[in-house]
């Protein structure tokens, strides 16, 4: 479904701030895989997701989605394969546009946009059903601008927008990190439910080790722009936080993870 081969990206090439964001990232996702990605700050987790989504072109390597080489494809042309939810709740919706208008735009993800109506009556009733499923009471506020909603409500809507056309690949970039614990839990449950029901292939970055272990069927740990550990389905079932820490120390050559934010959770 997704294939990354020796993906490399250097930011600020030739300047004093040169940083190898991605060194040699390779991994493959099979259809239906739900991979959680963890790693410290600057490990390259978000950069990997952005490279897949096409926010920038990579310096070296190869990216394939659903059998198509997308390495040289600009972001807006990859959109037909990919649904995305961002860390910042403000990022996911057009805040001066209503809930239903945002959903209508998401419904047309990757399709040609012409001079047809931006939103139809049938679509509105469909959106009402989807919103009822979220169970946040938003089905009665469909013409409310999303800028007036809470962060959790917006993340739930962004999640709905990213998944309602059943994308080949769902990218979640710490999408619950900016929410309070209770809302984060609810959005995470919703994520799990949607992925399971629609059998989506998903890649989720998280800072929370327990979430990373609990959710999904595979786990990837990144460090300094490389995939350090790739835990397969069989091993992940019995994985504990302590195991993960031990694996990290061993794989990174005895480095300590004490200062890393990922331990805080």
């Amino acid at each position: 479904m997704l294939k990354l081969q020796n993906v490399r990206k250097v930011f600020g090439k030739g300047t004093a701030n040169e940083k190898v964001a991605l060194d040699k990232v390779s991994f493959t996702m099979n259809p239906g895989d739900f991979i959680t990605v963890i790693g410290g700050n600057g490990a390259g987790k978000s950069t990997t997701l952005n490279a897949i989504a096409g926010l920038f072109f990579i310096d070296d390597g190869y990216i394939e989605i659903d059998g198509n080489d997308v390495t040289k494809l600009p972001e807006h042309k990859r959109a037909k394969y990919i649904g995305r939810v961002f860390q910042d709740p403000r990022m996911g919706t057009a805040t001066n546009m209503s809930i239903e208008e945002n959903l209508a735009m998401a419904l047309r993800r990757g399709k040609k946009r012409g001079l047809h109506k931006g939103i139809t009556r049938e679509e509105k009733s469909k959106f009402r059903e989807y919103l009822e499923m979220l169970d946040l009471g938003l089905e009665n506020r469909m013409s409310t601008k999303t800028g007036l909603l809470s962060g959790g409500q917006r993340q739930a809507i962004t999640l709905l927008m990213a998944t309602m056309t059943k994308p080949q690949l769902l990218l979640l970039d710490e999408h619950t990190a900016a929410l309070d614990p209770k809302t984060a839990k609810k959005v995470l449950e919703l994520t799990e439910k949607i992925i399971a029901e629609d059998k989506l292939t998903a890649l989720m970055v998280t800072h929370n080790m327990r979430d990373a272990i609990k959710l999904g069927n595979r786990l990837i740990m990144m460090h300094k722009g490389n995939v350090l550990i790739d835990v397969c389905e069989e091993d992940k079932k019995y994985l504990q936080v302590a195991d993960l820490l031990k694996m990290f120390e061993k794989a990174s050559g005895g480095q300590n993870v004490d200062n890393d934010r990922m331990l805080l959770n």
Partner: protein
Amino acid sequence: MRLSILMGAVSQGLLWSILAIGVYITYKILDYADLTTEGSYPLGAAVAAQMILSGYNPFVATFVSMIAGMAAGFVTGFLNTKLKIPSLLSGILSMTGLYSVNLRIMGKANLPLLKQDTVISVLSDRGIETSTAVLIVGIISVLVVIAILWWFFGTEKGFAIRATGDNSAMIRALGVNTNSMVILGLVISNGLIALSGGIMAQYNGYADVGMGTGTIVIGLASVIIGEVLFGHSSILRSLFAVVLGSILYRIIIAFVLSKGLVPTDLKLLSSVLLAVCLSLPLIKEKLYNFVEKIHGNKQKEGEVNA
């Protein structure tokens, strides 16, 4: 203020409002401060005037002036999105270049339209009073522009343009080429601005190479006055608010002129007016804090006294 002056201000406001709507599209919908305005407005005037003088039907001339403005908008969009020149600078480059283009089109700095057929004279020749004819032309063109834009911003493409100005990262993630949307928005905006210039040349009876100076401020002032006084809850409401803002702006100008201000002071007045409008949110907040503070102090005093 005499009624005839008021009516003149309303007609002028209507003609200017087409420019203001163009500015609204870039400034408010696309979130793009576009200075091409100051070049595309006289461009429209130059094209319309020169074509009418060459014997073309005034309606054809007016239509072509709009097309010329669209081309100008395309150039700015191209500079910004394809050549990655910052938005403000792209507008300045177009505006400056257009000064020469406009002189080329006109052949001289001022092109009078004496005794020529215009979209206004076509009506007044049929026995309608000139001031009424201007009003009719203004109302019809504004209503047509608003109707088309209201429809357009409700289409899939219209949604995509609105989202591009609102949150370009989000709409790119949904598969929209935001560069194309920026160009399209600039094309529509400058088309309207040139249309306004084309009609205004026929209303004034001349095209002048310097008539673009200060138009961006006039357009912005209309947009902000309209938004503050008449609301912006929907696209349709915003469009009408801009028109009302533009009319109100002309009434203010007519009023100060009738009080003895000389026309050459108008640009300064426009700038001051816009500065005040733009700082209204801040003034409102400071005023609110000030009132809160006084109120709070009084409460404290009350507590002490008790």
